[in-house]
């Protein structure tokens, strides 16, 4: 996903000289194509995320379209106030890019796991929050952000994600993508955990359940229209995110549903308000915390 992001940004940056990529001293082996092909639009700001983010705001207010880049919580929580006051409040053209949303950096430990970022960034006014599910969405999100005027957060996986969508017609910030129709159950997924949904579907199919599946590359602004449509059409809506189940994508869906007089039952699949203390790779941690395909299926079956 990060390679797709970089490849896409290189193409965009060649066409639009206002685009700048500023990294907090990360991206070894990843950002090389960018600095080789667009050297004048690349900056390594060092291991200093607070300064990086305010510098990006200053650059943006002087006409640049700036992407800041780091991993895990470093481009967001470490410099949250800079994102809030300097970028968002000024509607500065800064796109904060995180590599490694969720358990991507599994074995590296809790410090490197971004599991509250969506909730926190979503709470900031004038910040668009995007979490693409696969390589196709990652490319579309990057293109959309290059055009978007304002502050945004792009939460990416790392590598090894698949192309799940063949292609996406008319990608728009704020619009969910219907993968396919189904009955009784609708699965809403944001971010790279989408790869688990395939397995979930296989398990459900054995019980003759064909769920509808949607991805939400945009968590904010949330696609109310799709939620409203599904609220009455299905018995159960299951939201899936590699993130705390408080405040994130599931909460965004819950906020819309709760205001309706009648709606489908909601199941929020996510990390149950804890830090990951176990050691292991991304897949292992998903299993441990109930976020793998089979666990998601079990939770759905327990709720219908």
């Amino acid at each position, binding site marked *: 996903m990060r390679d797709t992001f970089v490849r896409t940004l290189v193409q965009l940056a060649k066409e639009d000289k206002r685009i700048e990529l500023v990294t907090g001293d990360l991206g070894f082996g990843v950002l090389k194509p960018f600095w080789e092909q667009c050297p*004048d639009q690349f*900056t390594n*700001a*060092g291991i*200093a995320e*607070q*300064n990086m*983010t*305010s*510098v*990006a*705001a*200053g*650059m*943006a*207010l*002087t*006409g*640049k379209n700036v992407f800041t880049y780091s991993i895990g919580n470093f481009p967001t929580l470490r410099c949250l*106030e*800079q994102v809030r*006051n*300097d970028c968002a*409040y*000024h509607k500065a053209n800064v796109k904060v890019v995180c590599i490694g949303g969720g358990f991507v950096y599994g074995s590296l430990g809790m410090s490197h796991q971004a599991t509250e970022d969506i909730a926190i960034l979503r709470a900031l006014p004038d910040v668009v929050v995007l979490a693409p599910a696969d390589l196709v969405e990652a490319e579309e999100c990057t293109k959309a952000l290059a055009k978007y005027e304002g502050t945004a957060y792009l939460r990416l996986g790392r590598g090894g994600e698949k192309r799940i969508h063949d292609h996406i017609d008319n990608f728009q910030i704020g619009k969910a993508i219907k993968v396919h129709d189904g009955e009784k159950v609708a699965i809403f997924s944001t971010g790279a955990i989408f790869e688990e949904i395939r397995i979930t579907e296989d398990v459900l199919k054995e019980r003759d359940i064909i769920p509808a599946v949607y991805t939400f590359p945009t968590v904010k602004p949330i696609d109310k229209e799709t939620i409203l449509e599904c609220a009455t059409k299905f018995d159960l809506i299951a939201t899936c995110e590699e993130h705390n189940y408080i405040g994130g994508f599931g909460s965004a869906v819950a906020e819309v549903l709760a205001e309706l007089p009648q709606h489908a039952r909601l199941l929020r699949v996510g990390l149950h308000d804890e830090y990951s203390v176990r050691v292991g790779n991304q897949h292992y941690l998903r299993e441990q915390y109930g976020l793998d395909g089979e666990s998601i299926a079990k939770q759905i079956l327990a709720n219908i």
Partner: protein
Amino acid sequence: MKHTSEELAWLIRRHGVEMTHLSGGSHLGAILSVADVVATLYTDVMHYDPKNPKWEGRDRFILSKGHAGASIYAALAESGFFPVEELKTHYQNGSRLSGHVSHHLPGVDFSTGSLGHGMSAAAGIAYALKKDGRKELSFVVVGDGECNEGSVWEAALFANHFRLNNLCVIVDHNHMQSLDFNENTLEIEDFASKWKAFGWNVIEINGNNHQEIKAAFKKFEEYSNTEPHKPTVIIANTVKGYGIPFMQNDILWHYRFPHDGWEYDCAVNELHKIKPSGVEDPYTPNGIENPVLPTGKDDIYNDHTFSYTWKTTYPEKMRRVDAKIGTTEKVHNV
């Protein structure tokens, strides 16, 4: 009407007293310390167009110590960005003039209020200007207490590394911060050596002396045009509360506003003692006749610092710095 820097500095002080008096606002001490630097920037240094605040060719300015916002509001109003009358709305319901600097006001490029942001933003502006080969300059005023923030030193590294010779940082070094003198809080001297060690051009001046301020900005202009490409810091040694003797070097006036009675009357009359002849006081043209005067019971000429009353039972060898009231001299007790 075009003011001299001395006239504008006086007006900033007079507006500062009136605005905090009317609103119950804070930070008058900082407004008074920084007034001369801010005034000189607007009268003698920066290029700007009050009729076209977003003019591309303007020099950029950030007041990173956003709590001294009233100084900028006064400077902008007196420089034609908006009516002077609007200053009276400071802090009021529905006003555009928040206590900390807001960009929802013509002439303000960047909102501040949380310390340690402005210098990085100014560096970003300078960097973008430099990348595009533009000749506008980026100015930012930071506080000395603000230099406790780690992000200030991140920005110091960045600005030097990217050779931002179009960036000028002015430190309003009034030697006091929220509870005490800087040296009794987190020791920052030798301050100039720290900046030098970070690779900066360092100019140290009396920041309440207009000749020295102007000479410092001239020097910056030279530095910005010559090799090596280094950013410049002007360490403006100022006095907190400068211009009103009973407020000088007293941390009380970081918070307190001049109340009705002797505080307001004496503040106004003290300013009238130093009023340049070419300027008019828009509020009390002739000062205050028959002012209320302080009595022996009033808590005056006490610096109200934390270290005066903080007595630990464990041995500690922190260096204490006391103010010598009414002067810039400090007493160092090791």
